[in-house]
């Protein structure tokens, strides 16, 4: 056991698995010699050599496309996209190929590969460094989309992603990369992809969130509990495939629902969650399910970002509206 933040845990987990499995290769822009702009891969090139952890040319389609070729030819590539905004040039490889190779070849070629990318805002960054694009990937059949919210989960989910025979988009909540530490076991453990976690049981409302929003919501929930509102809080952990069962069961109990994420409101993960709740718990609903999300705008540059980001206060207010409906 060691105390680690999410970023350390990414590094520890890659190290752990590279040690165990020499088909694992790690690469991307600045990933090798320097160890990544966030230092998520620091030390790996030194320990495992330039063949297993290396810098790539500046070309995201090249990174993802070559990983597809490697995965077919016996390796397990874990590639880094420096910021999730820069995944866009690789969309063709991800959507047209990574998501489809197994189906296209009727099961002959599977792609055990992971695309890691730090996502989300709140770090006062330049344009294209704060994107939350999870809804796009979740819409695409054949992909899995995983977002951890704690160091402990990061290890279990990243190991699951690496060992998954199918491609996983692993979005890391960079806003909380270093926000807090947790005991992370040295040993091997898996947190299954596709299962949400009930962080806290409650009676009055089900709140579903994930990633960097988890601590914000936890903060809000603490406050709400003080005011006598009992929240069932669920961390999705996996955006796709969605753990409908856990969500629906919860709403059948609480009768109320809110989804919280930083990404824009429309055509979003929250929209999917509300539809899922409608399909599975319509008769239990006592108030309109609500979305606590970003506005339908490009995330502002730092001097306006506070208008966009979701504070515990905003969450509290909206949740109260649902509970008091």
């Amino acid at each position, binding site marked *: 056991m060691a105390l680690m933040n999410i970023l350390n845990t990414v590094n520890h987990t890659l190290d752990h698995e590279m040690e165990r499995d020499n088909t694992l290769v790690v690469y991307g822009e600045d990933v090798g010699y320097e160890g990544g702009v966030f230092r998520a891969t620091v030390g790996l090139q030194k320990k495992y050599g330039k063949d297993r952890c290396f810098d790539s040319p500046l070309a995201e389609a090249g990174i993802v496309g070559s990983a597809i070729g490697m995965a*077919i030819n016996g390796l397990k590539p874990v590639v880094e996209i420096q910021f999730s905004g820069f995944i866009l040039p690789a969309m063709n490889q991800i959507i047209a190929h990574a998501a489809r190779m197994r189906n296209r070849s009727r099961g002959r070629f599977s792609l055990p590969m992971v695309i890691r990318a730090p996502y989300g805002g709140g770090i006062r960054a330049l344009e294209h460094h704060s994107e939350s694009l999870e809804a796009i990937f979740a819409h695409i059949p054949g992909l899995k989309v995983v977002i951890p919210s704690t160091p402990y989960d990061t290890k279990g989910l990243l190991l699951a992603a690496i060992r998954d025979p*199918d491609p996983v988009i692993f979005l890391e909540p960079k806003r909380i990369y270093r926000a807090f530490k947790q005991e992370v076991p040295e040993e091997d453990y898996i947190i299954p992809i596709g299962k949400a976690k009930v962080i806290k049981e409650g009676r009055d409302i089900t709140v579903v969130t994930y990633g960097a929003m988890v601590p914000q919501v936890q903060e809000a929930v603490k406050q709400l509990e003080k005011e006598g509102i009992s929240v069932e809080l669920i961390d999705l952990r996996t955006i796709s495939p969605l753990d409908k069962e856990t969500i629906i069961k919860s709403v059948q109990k609480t009768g109320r629902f809110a989804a919280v994420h930083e990404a824009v409101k429309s055509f979003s993960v929250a929209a999917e969650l509300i539809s899922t709740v409608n399909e599975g718990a319509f008769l239990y609903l006592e108030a309109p399910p609500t979305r606590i999300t970003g506005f339908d705008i490009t995330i502002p540059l730092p001097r306006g970002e506070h208008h966009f980001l979701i504070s515990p206060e905003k969450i509290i207010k909206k949740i109260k509206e649902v509970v008091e409906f």
Partner: protein
Amino acid sequence: MLIEKYSPLEGKMLSIMDIEGNIVKKDLMPQIKDEKILELYKMMLLTKIADTKALQYQRQGRMLTYAPNRGQEAAQLGAIAATEERDWLVPAFRELGAWFYKGVPLEQVYLYWYGSEMGSKFPENVKMLPVSVPISSQINHGAGLAMASKYKGEDHVTMAFVGDGGTSHGEFHEGMNFAAVFDAPLIVIIQNNQYAISVPRHVQTKTKTLAEKAVAYGIPGIQVDGNDIFAMYLAAKDAVERARKGEGPTLIEAVTYRLGPHTTSDDPSIYREDSEVEEWSKKDPVERLKKYLINNELWSEERDQKQIEEYEELVNATFKRVENSGETPLEDIFKYHYETMTPILEEQLKEYKSNLEGSEK
């Protein structure tokens, strides 16, 4: 190395055999056993017949769609013949000859164009990726396959195909550069068949050749008469050797011509002159190799005729099987998205099945 002597920047193009089947560059004629030449010729013939038939079937409304190879057989077979079974083939979508050489059964080829995913599930020993419809994206796969071979210490090479149009795409650039930077054992064959659908080669790019694009990656590039199977073989052999020795990728431009339409939905008469097609017909690679074989008493018109008949029967019989192979089973459209079907997919499949049963009652 031969390739270094044929700089496209100096306007050189490799060719060995003239259109009458005469070996005009005797010193360059590669050492290929007569049996292998015959085998290659037969594959060209099969390619030609499978091609011609597919077009016919489509015209009869029996085949879904098809992208013909007529005229490009030597480019495909000459290149791939320089590889071994252990090597990877990364297709674009118009390399039927190369697929046959790799061992893809005709039945699967037809299944593919008939509209079934099963057409892309090749036998385990066929080291070939499925067709890549998004132009040029396969070059990055080729780079990755080759990088993995190198990583594993295997001497396997990867041969990837792309069209003249494909060289304009960003994915071509990124894949070429990746392969070059990592000295990956990748050979990229550009089938320059003069058109990307209706767009002629000179609208695609201002360069005199496509081979010279290799300069941008710091690797050798060579322009080859793509209708001359021996020249294609020689250039590819050289490139394969370089790759196996760890010397990195090579770019080969096969100058050829698509005698048929782009696909069965295309009408080439809109954008090209009959006279151009006629000119290129004279360079038909199948005819050319046939002449060589006959000149060298390795083949005869009678054997040719018999072989054609044999293949026509084979092709017809194969297509009949494809025509009668039924539709895609419902489960199949769900079950290959993930190793294990997700609960959501299971639910959707179940609901659909129960609806089907409902409506059958």
